[in-house]
């Protein structure tokens, strides 16, 4: 039995007080949540996370099937396996939620993120920024004599790495979409 004991884990998400699973490590998961696109559905999902003390690292949402009014919410969250199990169960309890797919656990997930990165500078720094952007296959979507806006897609850590490299070169501002995900292969979900 792993009923947990004593005080809450110091770094873990703090939901249900008194309950903890110190032996369980915190994991990062990407969940695809398929919902009926009806008013308030996003608020239900987000409210569930805040109300029960779960984490949201990133969240994206858009309608993906207009004929059946279906939206896909992609949530990146963290928790112990026990908390992650609870998150899935609680999501399924919401009436408009039809399906929750654990993309990370499936091992067949592809995750992508898009970012817009504004960099300002002149001279050597400006040239260097452009050169790194080419290595990362980022597109220039706006330019002035003193700035670029790069559009970059890829896995989240690739984008973070790109942003890190741009920081000394005059990084002004970053806008990221959050993670999108889908499973490899011909099957749905």
């Amino acid at each position: 039995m792993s009923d947990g004991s004593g005080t809450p884990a110091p770094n873990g998400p703090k939901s249900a007080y008194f309950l903890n699973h110190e032996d369980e490590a915190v994991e990062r998961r990407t969940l695809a949540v398929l919902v009926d696109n009806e008013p308030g559905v996003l608020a239900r999902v987000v409210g569930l996370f805040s109300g029960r003390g779960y984490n949201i690292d990133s969240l994206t949402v858009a309608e993906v099937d207009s004929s059946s009014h279906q939206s896909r919410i992609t949530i990146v969250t963290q928790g112990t396996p026990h908390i992650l199990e609870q998150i899935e169960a609680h999501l399924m309890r919401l009436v408009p939620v039809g399906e929750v797919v654990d993309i990370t656990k499936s091992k067949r997930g592809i995750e992508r993120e898009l970012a817009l990165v504004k960099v300002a500078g002149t001279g050597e720094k400006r040239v260097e920024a452009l050169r790194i952007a080419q290595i990362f296959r980022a597109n220039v979507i706006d330019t002035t004599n003193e700035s670029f806006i790069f559009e970059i897609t890829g896995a989240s850590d690739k984008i973070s790495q790109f942003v890190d490299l741009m920081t000394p070169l005059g990084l002004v501002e970053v806008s990221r979409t959050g993670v999108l995900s889908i499973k490899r292969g011909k099957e749905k979900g």
Partner: protein
Amino acid sequence: MTVKTKQKTETRLMTGAEIVITALREQGVEVMFGYPGGAVLPIYDALFAADDIRHILVRHEQGAGHAAEGYARSTGKCGVALVTSGPGATNMVTPITDAMMDSIPMVVISGQVPTHLIGTDAFQEADTTGITRSCAKHNYLVTDVDQLARTIHEAFHIATSGRPGPVVIDIPKDVQFATGTYSGKDGVHKPTYAPRTEPQPEAIEAVAELIAMARRPVFYTGGGVINSGPKASVALRKLQAETGIPVTSTLMGLGAFPASHKDWLGMVGMHGSYEANNAMHDCDLMICVGARFDDRVTGRIDAFSPNSKKVHIDIDPSSINKIVRVDVPIVADCAAALEALIAAVKHRKGKKPDLKPWKAEIDVWRARDCFAYEPSDKIIKPQYAIERLYALTRERETFITTEVGQHQMWAAQFFHFDEPNHWMTSGGLGTMGYGLPAAVGVQCAHPEALVIDIAGEASIQMMMQELSTAVQFCLPVKVFILNNEWMGMVRQWQELLHGERYSHSYSESLPDFVKLAEAMGAHGIRCEDPAQLDDKIMEMIEHPGPVLFDCMIEKDGNCLPMIPSGSAHNEMILGQITGNEIGETGRKLV
């Protein structure tokens, strides 16, 4: 219903308000509880012409919600409440949360300001769907009159199926006036909502196997057995008869198994019996049926039933492994799972396990007589008051509701239930003020029965205006106040945890309850002498109308036994509180 008339009802054009009433009628609603206001006037207008739906006018919207809960708990049907926008809706938040915590089927219809005024901070506007999103099972804001009938039918389906709960339908005033098409309840289907109710056969087999192996098994049952309907209580009794396993229950589950049965252990948990808690701690197989390992039940979680295999039957997958890891989870309706278990247990060949040594051990715990108290002929002991109330009412069809606090626990300990749906209490949320309006709801459903709200003098003041509702609608509810002039449970915790510093827990300036009853058109009785208690209780029972009974009891009695917070099942306080029972960790808990 013939096909022809069905078509006729399904295509009728009517106003939104008429759609509401027609849909309620089609759902079989006979009674609803409500309070009118600007944003629901069209619905009230339609109700004016509806003779077949009884409307009980409460005195406060919270009362409507608890009355609907009481009605639902005592009948198994869906409770219905109707309130106006703004304050009407916000006053419903407590009963909605209460119904959510205790899984009570309830549909709340609230008026809303007209659609074109939503978001303008209009008079009596509140974001009702926003406010109730986290405390209701589901909610709707209906902006299209043609969706109204379908929404109401869907709301009833969601409120009453799966793990039951409250559903809120917020209807703007212009939608109530608009003309739309009525559609019947047949064919209403929400594809994303499909609760699983049938148990997995392999899991049932595994449990039958565990039962055959167990030498110290116990049933730990809860409100889910009652919510599942009378079939589940019948199945529990049959399965118990088949296996001989002793039974304990949570506060919410009292009555599902008869308290008069020899294998009944009494209630489990913080104020449960010594034998039930020790059996839970020392068992080798725990079969949890429709309960949720609530903190009032488990006590210290790392010391919770350390040596048992655990089976958990629950219709809500999120309840499984939430607090306690279980060995065999079964996501199913209690009745379906229990019936499958009966078949599986009967089907097994071989000798049944010998539970005699286990029961002998339980008898030793039982012999401690944990509910014993020192009798008195001078003052009325609260335990004695409930004992007498039980003794004098047991031959009648009696329903008990309670408020929250010491009196609630004494009622659970000393009033005994042999049938489900006869005990209505606010378990999860612990709502003071629940009992009187709940009793109003119960009495509406059972006009001939004896309905008693066991109350405290502090709790009753939270919703006592509902006595007026009882008077108006000739609902002869009895309010039996255990008056110790303290918020007793607060006082007990201050004694236990805060060095007897009784901060703001004394009931100052109490009303004269007898005069109060008379002022409100009810009958008032006061009793201070144990020798007169029986006669006065009989006077209360025999009075044909509502009664407020002011039972003056021992002032500083503690509700025992008790598992102090942060302690294990086998660390109960049985006798006196010393003030040193709770450690640093426990002190921080609720």
